[in-house]
């Protein structure tokens, strides 16, 4: 805790780390505390902003209420997938692909940097590459 020693105006050499702070006037003590906490506030806020959505695919489909997911631009989003069949999923626009298997959940994690309305599609393997096999949901990122 070098900070306390440096910013305390009356330099009182002390082996005890806390004393530097303890020796400050109360107002300064609060200010110091605030200064120390401040850099972590955005990180904390961001950590709280992770929007998690649990999406359980049954026979390759989602329940009706989960076909549109709305988030705000800048938020961190996690789509946590479980499925009773193996399936590969592709989030358009952000171009993120995940494979989900029964008993093996997968997560599509992203920071919603781009506003828009992006479908998540099931990819099906066929001869001659993959092709798009159905829209599961739309991720709406609102500005």
């Amino acid at each position, binding site marked *: 805790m070098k900070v306390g020693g440096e910013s305390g105006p009356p330099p009182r050499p002390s082996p005890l780390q806390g004393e530097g702070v303890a020796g400050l006037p109360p107002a300064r003590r609060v200010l110091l505390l605030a200064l120390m906490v401040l850099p972590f506030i955005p990180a904390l806020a961001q950590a709280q902003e992770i929007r998690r959505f649990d999406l359980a695919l049954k026979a390759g489909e989602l329940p009706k209420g989960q076909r549109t997911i709305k988030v705000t631009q800048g938020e961190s989003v996690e789509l946590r997938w479980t499925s009773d069949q193996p399936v590969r999923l592709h989030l*358009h*626009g952000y*171009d993120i692909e995940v494979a989900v298997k029964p008993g093996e959940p997968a997560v599509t994690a992203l920071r919603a*940097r*781009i*506003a*828009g*309305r*992006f479908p998540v*599609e*099931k990819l099906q393997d*066929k001869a001659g590459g993959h*092709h*798009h*096999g*159905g*829209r599961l949901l*739309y991720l*709406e*990122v*609102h*500005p």
Partner: protein
Amino acid sequence: MLCRILFAGSALLAGGTAAQAHAYGERYDLPVPLWMNVAGGSAVVVLSFVMAAWFLQPQKETRAPRPNLLVVPAGRLLGSAPVLVAVKILSVFLFIVALLAGFVGLPDYSRNAAPTIFWVIGWVGLAFASVLFGNIWLLVNPWLILFDWADALWRRLTGRHLSFALRYPRRLGVLPGILMIVGFTWFMLASGFAGDSRSLACVAAVYSAVTWIGMLVFGAPAWLAHGEAFTLLFGVLARFSPTALRVADRAICARSDCPPDENGECTDCAEAFLLAPPQKRAITLRAYGIGLIVQHPLPLSMIVVVLMVLALVAFEGFMDTAQWIELMVFLGEIEESDGIHAPVKTTLSFLAATGILFGLFFVVSALMRMIGYAGAAPKYGTLQIMGLFVLSLVPISVAYHVAHYLYWFHTQIQFVVPAASDPFAFGWDLFGGRNFVPDRAAIPLKVIWHTAIVAIVIGHVIAVYVAHRVALDVFSTRRAALLSQIPMLLLMVGYTMTSLWMLAQPIMG
């Protein structure tokens, strides 16, 4: 023949595995929020009445001087032979690269140059440029450039023009062009192959053959003006632009079916402009939208072309809505995972949309004629009234085109970077941009929303202005002219509200 086999093959495949539903390139924009839409809609209604009240005041006619851009220094530089030749070479180069990429290249949408050159630059890009700057299609049309070069070569070899120069049957009007536009609409919106580079090259090759045969038989100017879809489509849009193509030759204008004005000049007449010798041509400046005020009624087939332009932009927006999918399901189509595949019903729906628009506009024109000539001897028939007023609807569709395509265009134009580095999708990296990923947030969505709404409101205001100006020319008294505009105003508000409604719909399929 190769194309036919390919097409038959693709049709079979489409039945089994479903090609991409989208014509080309995905759109991920969010619908415009309700409050913005309501604000835009209210502005449209209020401004319509403000405009009408403004026209109640006596107007002073001022004729601004019209400088010929071809003689001012900057214009002379831009119009000089080396610049024009360079532009033409670039256009032909892009055309050939696109064809080669389509036929030889691998069908990778994000790299193959064919979809980017044909759709992004050639269709949407040139439509924007026609609106913003003028009829540059007459300069960059690769079919015309290549034909002109072949003609020059042929003349050097034989001393004769490369054309049978048969007289184009004028009573057909632009009917061949209408058929081409319907074919183009089928391919772009209905076929399901529009994003496939090989089909694209096939269609372009077939279209090239038809166009060159037409030019060979009737001569380039006559065929382009009557049978070339893009000369017609871009020509309609370019009438909105701030540059007018003028020809100062009464005989050439009359020969091209473009009635000369009191000075013996005709404006925005592609055929006359191509026929006229350089000293008779001029490019002059005007305000946006002024070119839509015409003194002579457009012929019937040209009315249909203009209404098709309106129907095309509106129909394209409608095809993205859930209502379209519902309609097709109602008509017995099956909604597949990636949308609806109904080439025949889609094309018929487009024709029906044009038909409905024609019917509505006919009724409105009949009402305008009835109100405008109440108690006076009618100077024009209903079809002629349609021909005089039809262009006043163009600003609304131009605005909707801008609103609809802004987001799409700003993402798709970035595909130029990977396409330039790897035009055939062979894995080349000519300029180091092969793995470039377009930034979908290059223009923030909020900016796009505001631009869309503002564009539609401005488009509507210009449309109302143009129609009022035409009415003042057509009807004998100011009162009659203003009253005649009530049905037209209703049609315009309806068309604008439809545009706004479509912008508020989420993009489906």
